[in-house]
């Protein structure tokens, strides 16, 4: 008897949720005007295609320090440093945010999660401006902006990894009389490290992607020339930049999957 009752309630809840989801989707679809393909689409696409097929090879390298190769290197350097900074900042925040006991309300974890959310909500653009005021325009501001901005995302991923990690080794060290810090060093850290490394690599990829925003702060990197090429409809330059990014991604991907495999 009792059992059927709960099922009825469950089913009712299920219907409410389903209706809610349907409503949200109707609302969303309603809000997007579905414009068709543009009159100029075919000629524009052809122009883009032509540009991409005939990339501006002279831009690849010309020794000026402001060619494709140098800009890609700068982009990588910014993403790399930014990722390293955020990886270090994320770890303490992640431990703060991880909910390690199964309580309904968990103040420490809630505080940590709200902090991480706040960092994520701060647009990269605004962070970039804050850092320019501090260290001046240039790549360093870009590094800091990416470094801080990534903390929100990396911290969240880290904390979820911590919540889901295997705690059995920790139990053994506690049973052997280890203190909290000792347990962390001996059991927690080695267990969690591969997950942290893997997320960090992943974040590195995303940071490379953020590079386009860095044009705002004069950080250099591929973002600015790309934006200019796009704005002036210089498709052959866009083409070579695209090619450069594709190659860079292939290289990064190969490296990071090799590293991931070794971590396994």
């Amino acid at each position, binding site marked *: 008897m009792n059992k059927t009752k709960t099922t009825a309630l469950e089913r009712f809840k299920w219907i409410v949720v389903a209706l809610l989801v349907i409503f949200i989707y109707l609302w969303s679809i309603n809000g*997007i005007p579905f414009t068709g393909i543009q009159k100029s689409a075919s000629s524009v696409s052809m122009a883009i295609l032509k540009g991409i097929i005939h990339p501006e090879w002279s831009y690849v390298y010309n020794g000026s320090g402001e060619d494709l190769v140098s800009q890609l290197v700068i982009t990588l350097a910014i993403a790399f440093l930014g990722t390293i900074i955020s990886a270090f900042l994320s770890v303490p925040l992640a431990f703060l945010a991880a909910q390690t006991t199964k309580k309904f309300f968990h103040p420490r974890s809630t505080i940590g999660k709200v902090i991480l959310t706040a960092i994520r909500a701060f647009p990269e*653009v605004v962070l970039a401006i804050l850092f320019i005021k*501090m260290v001046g325009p240039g790549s360093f501001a870009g590094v800091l902006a990416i470094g801080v901005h990534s903390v929100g995302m990396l911290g*969240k991923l880290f904390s979820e990894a911590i919540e889901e990690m295997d705690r059995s080794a920790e139990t053994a060290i506690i049973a052997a009389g280890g203190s909290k810090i000792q347990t962390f060093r001996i059991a927690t850290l080695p267990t969690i490290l591969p997950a942290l490394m893997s997320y960090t690599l992943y974040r590195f990829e995303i940071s490379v992607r953020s590079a386009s925003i860095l044009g705002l702060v004069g950080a250099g990197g591929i973002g600015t020339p790309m934006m200019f090429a796009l704005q002036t409809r210089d498709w052959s330059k866009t083409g070579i930049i695209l090619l450069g990014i594709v190659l860079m991604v292939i290289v990064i991907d190969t490296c990071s999957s090799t590293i991931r495999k070794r971590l396994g």
Partner: protein
Amino acid sequence: MKQEVPQLSFVRRFHVVGIAITVVILILIYYSALITGVDVNAFFENADQFGVVLNQMKHPDWPYLTKIAGTLAQTLQMAIIGTTIGAIIALPFSFLAARNIVRNPIGRLIIRLILSLIRTLPTLLLAALFVAIFGIGPMTGVITLAFFSFGMIAKLFYDFIETIDMGPVRALQATGATMLQTIRIAVIPQISGQFMSDFMYTLEINVRSSTVLGYLGAGGIGLYLQQTLDQFDYPRTAVIILAIFAVVLVIDAISNYVRKRLQ
């Protein structure tokens, strides 16, 4: 109790590999710092300047909220539709990219490369190309977001599929089930929770990246963000940031709830 501790090989005794990796990373950090002009002095000397703009954000211009409400809603709508489209396309691809489901390494490699390319191509570039084809407007935003979501979800997802318990999969194969049947019965139940969580996560990223999309006229709150910044109207910028914060907080809460429910 005296007992000789067996010697390790030279390479392992002196942690040659570990030290080499550390050294390489340090060198990379050094050169990256050189390239990017890291200036620790400036960082500390001018630390107070960091707060100048933040200070001006202390008193948000709340009435502005009514003005951006519509756009905020549109941002959400774009993110929801874009993420959903991306997620639906991502699902089959993530199975194809998972090592434990598809054994053909070459096909898998190609799919993975395409996925990581989509993830890494800057939003700006994607949006600009789509603007050129689909014109200005939220639909372009939706397409850009869908594209990115596809790459992102597929990746998060094949990573997860590779960690599932293969026991039920083998059990199903042993009953003579086809691949699709096996996935339906033994894999889907294991991954549906994570799928929801990844979906919410990408949704959140998409809500946030609309601050960039606005820069290209692809709709969303980013337009207002840029306007308030260009007018140095930081109290209004603050309203926008807080609005995004609220949305992200809600999404995060839902995602945490779903994650816990489905564990």
